[in-house]
């Protein structure tokens, strides 16, 4: 046949629906939507084989804006629904979109278990450290002291660290990016999509209405140099130079401890060679990088951890294949007759 087999070049618009996008003007969700659409276009994704599954929240409106298959489910349960979708059809490329409330408050248990099972999906957790859709209550990731409609005097409970939770559940891919890292986000999303297994991506997202600017200092164009680091596997952990400037600082292990420390290049004879090289297969390093916060440390972005492990889809498939192999006759009639049976003869017999 002469029909072209590779699809024509796709653009982000090819993945946009006709639905008006209804996030607040200035919401960080817009940038993430654009980025996901761009990544799918860049990767020439087949939109008929792509499914977005979400829970409930501002972030979870995401599927309505993606011209792919989509399921806007109920609060916190997207990982379970997505697992079912994959069980029905493992060939689908399934993305889960969730929020800090959806994924870590009501949905915490499902998040743990989809990660544990390593279902081959991408989880995008939009972390704005607040409940957006229900008008601004504190969320389990809200920093201590966050004033909100449910914590007018400031929240008191320690927040969860999404990446720490994911690693605690045994995640084999964890990454962090932010709405404002427009240039950097696509690569992180691509890496997540390429990873076989459950890829967990925390996306820091600004809620302009209820929790504005909590990530302002260390994300995007206006970020303060030294407050963030983009990590890359095999590259030294250098940062601090500002946009398009050479780095001035590095990270190394504080000798004799399990702790990291920030060093300044050129000070006390420190050179690039003294700086730790990022090894994304080291879970301890990933944990330490994820835990870095200001003012003493830069906040880390990029793929913090990736290491392959058996994938749920494959174990289900091989279990099916084994079963078929062991059962030459799969007719139900044969099945029903298995085991102890007896004949009752008719009255004529």
């Amino acid at each position, binding site marked *: 046949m002469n029909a072209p087999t590779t699809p024509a070049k796709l653009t982000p618009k090819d993945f946009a*629906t006709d*639905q008006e996008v209804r996030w607040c003007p200035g919401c960080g969700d817009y940038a993430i939507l654009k980025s996901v659409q761009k990544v799918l276009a860049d990767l020439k994704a087949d*939109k*008929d*084989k792509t*499914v977005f*599954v979400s829970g*409930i929240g501002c972030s979870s409106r995401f*599927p*309505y804006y993606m*011209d*792919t*298959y*989509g*399921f*806007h*489910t*109920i609060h916190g*349960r997207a*990982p*379970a*629904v*997505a*697992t*079912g*979708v*994959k*069980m*029905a*059809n493992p*060939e*689908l490329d399934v993305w889960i979109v969730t929020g800090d409330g959806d994924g870590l408050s009501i949905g915490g*248990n*499902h998040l*743990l*278990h989809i990660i544990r099972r390593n279902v081959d999906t991408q989880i995008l957790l939009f972390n704005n450290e607040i409940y957006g859709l229900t008008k601004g209550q504190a969320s389990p990731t809200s920093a201590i002291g966050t004033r909100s409609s449910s914590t007018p005097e400031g929240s008191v409970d320690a927040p969860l660290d999404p990446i720490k939770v994911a690693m605690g559940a045994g995640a084999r891919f964890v990454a962090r990016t932010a709405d404002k890292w427009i240039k950097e986000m696509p690569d992180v999303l691509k890496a997540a999509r390429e990873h076989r297994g459950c890829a967990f991506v925390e996306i820091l997202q600004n809620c302009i209405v209820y929790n504005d600017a909590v990530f302002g200092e260390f994300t995007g164009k206006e970020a303060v140099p030294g407050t963030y680091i983009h990590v890359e596997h095999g590259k030294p952990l250098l940062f601090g130079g500002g946009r398009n400037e050479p780095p001035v600082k590095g990270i190394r292990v504080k000798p004799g401890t399990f702790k990291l420390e920030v060093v300044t290049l050129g000070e006390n004879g420190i050179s690039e060679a003294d700086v730790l090289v990022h090894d994304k297969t080291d879970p301890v390093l990933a944990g330490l990088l994820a835990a870095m916060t200001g003012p003493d440390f830069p906040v880390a972005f990029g793929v913090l951890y990736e290491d392959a492990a058996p994938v749920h889809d494959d174990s*289900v498939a091989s*279990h*099916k294949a084994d*079963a*078929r192999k*062991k*059962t030459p006759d*799969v*007719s*139900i*009639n044969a*099945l*029903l*007759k298995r*085991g*102890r*049976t*007896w*004949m*009752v*003869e*008719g*009255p004529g*017999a």
Partner: protein
Amino acid sequence: MSETQTLNPESGQGDRIELESAVVRFAGDSGDGIQLTGGQFTVASALAGNDLTTFPDFPAEIRAPVGTTYGVSAFQINFGGRRINTSGDAADCLVAFNPAALKTNIDKVNRGGLVIVDSGNFGPRDLKKAGYEVNPLEDGSLEGWNVVPIDISRLTLEAVADSGLGKVDALRCKNFWALGLIYWVFGRDRAPTAEWIEQKFGRKDAAIAKANVDALNAGHAFGETMELLQDFHGYRVPKAELPPGLYRTITGGDGFALGLAAAAQLTETEVVFASYPITPASPILHHLVKLTAYGVTTHQAEDEIAAACVAIGASYGGAIGVTSSSGPGIALKGEAIGLAVAAELPLVIINTQRAGPSTGLPTKTEQSDLYQALYGRNGDTPLVVLAPNSPADCFTMAIEATRIATKYMVPVMVLSDGYIANASEPWLIPDVDSLPRIPVTFRQDPEGYLPFKRDPDTLARDWAKPGTPGLAHRVGGIERDSETGDISYDPANHQRMTDFRHAKVAGVARDIPPQTVDQGKERGRLAVVGWGSTYGPIKRAVTNLRAEGLDVSHIHLRHIWPLPENLGALLDGFDQVLVPEMNTGQLLTLLRATYAKPYEGLSKVTGQPFKIAEIEAAVRSRLEG
């Protein structure tokens, strides 16, 4: 006249006494092999041509200390030369392997019944563990029964003396010794059991196999040579007239598992079964994990909510999503079931009910989740409710639920219960190839596709599988435009969609068989209306009462919602309507609300099935009072 008939051993004349039916109960420690013994007796009775129903009575504890009352495991079988509907109100014959078994089971034996006791286990320690202060075999407390103490333990040891087994292993054969004796009592063939023993133990340990067969034979010989009771020569239970064909036994758990596998074949669509373990629903999962080859993929989810959501996701993905649990677990699924109603996806939900509220009595049976099935969700959220009336009917209803769910794109709740789950009955194996196919079509044509456009007949929307070119669409739990499926806050649209959801489920009434009268006339003085596992006792009670000449009919609902279209008119033909339920009157509420008639309920909430006699008494008091 009850389902079972009290034995009168004294009437023997050298010949076996003929019984229309009999109820035998085995009771002992969990470690005594009671269930296995009962299973063998069941097969022997089936092979002898009897109809039968069996019910295991497990201890609530996993494995209690030996000799305690709460560690007693029992097995009851009702078998006969006529149709058998229940496992029997009470036993005609009890085999009790220790004092605890005697203590906890003697009340379940008819007065005058035969009670065989292993007197070798009635030492002071055994008695104490069971909480007896005096030996009941000696204090006259068992006077009402024909108690036959036999030192089964010693006799077993003697019988297997040359097996080379140690004492502990040798004693393990005593259940077969007792079985041999009971085989003599009812004139059963030992050969199939001996064969089974060979197969089961022979390969691993020929000595054990031989010892068990020796014990079986010795028990039988004991019956033949010793007089258990004066002039007692055993019973004869004639063959029942059963439809000819190949039979097997089936429990409710088996019925659902096999039915779902059949549904996968009949729809040519994969089933994804997701559940979280819970008593008494787990046997379905345990059976299905072995049926992967038949197109059923199972998933043990992290909780019930996840299980429901995995099933919903699977249905969205183009498989038939099924989830299963018992009451407390179903309570957790309510919100998710609402999503399936809203998204209009097929979903089969199986509830094997147990006694509530809350954790309740997990191992005991009840029908108290009907309210929850009908009404247990937020919003106006109608779905279809079915209820099998026997273990074998679970097979049929699994298929029926799949048919309705896929044809109407709607969740179907199937209500079983602890009795149906564990009871076992002979089942004439159907030819699945001759069952009607269940056509499932997935939308393929992108032309004019509107996710919520409906078939004018069924009001079902199209099922469009992700992966199908050109059908990419979004669904969700927020109210959807009645055609495009996009979010819609339009008041008129919400009314329209509410009406559609309602009408779609109501329309299923046109697609189910009209309600028939199971027994009795179509009009009359009193109709007993039952559902689910009360089928057996109601059926037998009505048979008995009709034989006495009472004007009573039995109507049994298997489609609970929507109700069959003719039901109201049918009930109008009776002066009185009595609704027995193992709850405080839940079907009663539905019927009264639907037809606005003052029907009466008969409620029993003890965790135990109705006795035939209880139904009989209730009907009698209304017709004779």
